[in-house]
């Protein structure tokens, strides 16, 4: 147990020292948040709701990013540099190593959520009830699971360049067409139709519902759960195939 805790601690340190994480998952979402709620906010009717809505957009954007990119690219790096193989000589089991990674990632998500929520509260003085703060934070934390699974699939790729290129593309496409940058309502009809099936929209929508005093829709939960199952199966299938090839 102590071993796993130490492993978690160092996983967290590693993510915190990663400049990409700090830039893309903490700095950029806050910058976007300021830009879209302080500067381009002239003709919006319900200012209060928009500010809370966009805070959720940016938090989900941040967490989705570190789940897909930080995790995925790091997994590829560790494998290509031979670190994963070296770890297999140690008594630490593969599953303990993986578990520690997931715990580390989750702690980092808690931190991202806390930082961005605090920034939002300070910048726009958002007033949500304690229950809404807590529930939206929890939703973002738990519903990030399918994105971690996408990260693990990215993590099976052979080259770091491919992994970072593809994960960037997926990340941006998901963010834009899932309504995280701009509300779904102002998107073209085609994107709206596709978007509602994407994990990003369902992830965001759960939080958007919570700050409006609703519960996440059942469809959000089902669709996210479906993606989680698909990507977990996919990644374990690829891993098994890669292991068989050795």
């Amino acid at each position: 147990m102590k071993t796993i805790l130490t492993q978690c601690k160092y996983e967290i340190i590693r993510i915190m020292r990663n400049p990409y994480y700090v830039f893309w998952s903490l700095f950029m979402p806050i910058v976007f948040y300021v830009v879209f709620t302080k500067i381009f906010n002239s003709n919006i009717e319900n200012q209060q709701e928009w500010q809370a809505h966009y805070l959720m957009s940016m938090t989900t954007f941040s967490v989705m990013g570190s789940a897909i990119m930080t995790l995925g690219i790091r997994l590829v790096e560790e494998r290509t540099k031979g670190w994963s193989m070296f770890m297999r000589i140690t008594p630490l089991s593969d599953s303990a190593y993986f578990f520690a990674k997931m715990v580390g990632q989750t702690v980092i998500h808690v931190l991202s959520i806390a930082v961005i929520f605090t920034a939002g509260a300070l910048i726009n003085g958002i007033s949500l009830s304690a229950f809404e703060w807590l529930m939206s934070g929890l939703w973002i934390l738990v519903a990030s699971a399918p994105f971690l699974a996408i990260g693990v699939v990215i993590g099976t790729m052979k080259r770091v360049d491919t992994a970072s290129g593809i994960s960037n593309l997926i990340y941006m496409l998901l963010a834009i067409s899932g309504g995280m940058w701009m509300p779904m309502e102002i998107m073209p009809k085609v994107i709206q139709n596709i978007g509602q099936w994407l994990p990003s929209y369902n992830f965001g929508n759960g939080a958007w519902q919570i700050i409006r005093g609703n519960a996440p829709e059942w469809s959000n939960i089902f669709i996210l759960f479906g993606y989680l199952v698909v990507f977990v199966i996919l990644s374990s299938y690829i891993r098994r195939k890669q292991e068989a090839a050795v």
Partner: protein
Amino acid sequence: MEQIISLQNIAKKFKDKKAVDDISFSIKKGEIVAILGPNGAGKSTTMLMMLGLLEPTSGSINIFNRNPKEKQVRERIGAMLQEVSVIDALKVKEVIQLFRSYYPNPMEFAELVTLTGLNDEDLKRKADKLSGGQKRRLGFALALAGNPDVLFFDEPTVGMDISSRKRFWDTIQALKERGKTIIFSTHYLQEADDIAERILLFNEGVIVADGTPKEIKKQLSKQSVSFIDPGNLSLEELQSLPIVRDVYRKNNRVYVVTEQTDDVLEYLFSTKEKVQGIQIEQGRLDEAFAELTENKEAI
């Protein structure tokens, strides 16, 4: 003495190429064994199979009477692979502490630092920013972190300068005195000869010789008796003797390659031929080894 590693009829095929072909050997506690051979002889493959990182195509490997992949085995072994890979974003000190946390009875941190020659400055640096030589030291520290009973080193001195090399082998001697079993691979004959008590000589995926450096040298090196060519001597007759390995003419001399030079001399005198200018040559070991290596590359 207690036998701690055993390989039985191990073979490993990569696609259609046989990397290791039906080898068997065992290693006793406290031995210091060199796996010697040219590049591509199957040294690394054998090492990786012993570490449980590669699955043999056939045969069985046991360490402490267990499968190398078992946790109980991993807790008692340490290894430095050919390519020392390092984790990013962590300092040397942190990586060592992390590794120590994996083992039930890790080596003291201060001791690891002393043994591997890492200095205070190295310890504070990020592991992925180290130079090649410093990475090797870190790799050495990680191999020792769990205070293992058996240590594996795959080509440990490649890329080390002379003084680091000396320091490394001195440390290995010290570890041996503590009762550790040490297995290392190398393609330097000199290293195997200086350090190991036993050499497993690999070539083309098989063990061609197994013994003390002295025995191996005897087997590898070609002794010969040479004398001025009398002109009328039948080489075929010499060749047909069981003690003679080879006979040839070179620079007006006849060379008789043999393991028993005394017996050859006795024979020469017994023929009543007038042989003159007899010389006995102790074939050079490194030449013989180079020949073995060349043969491999010619294929």
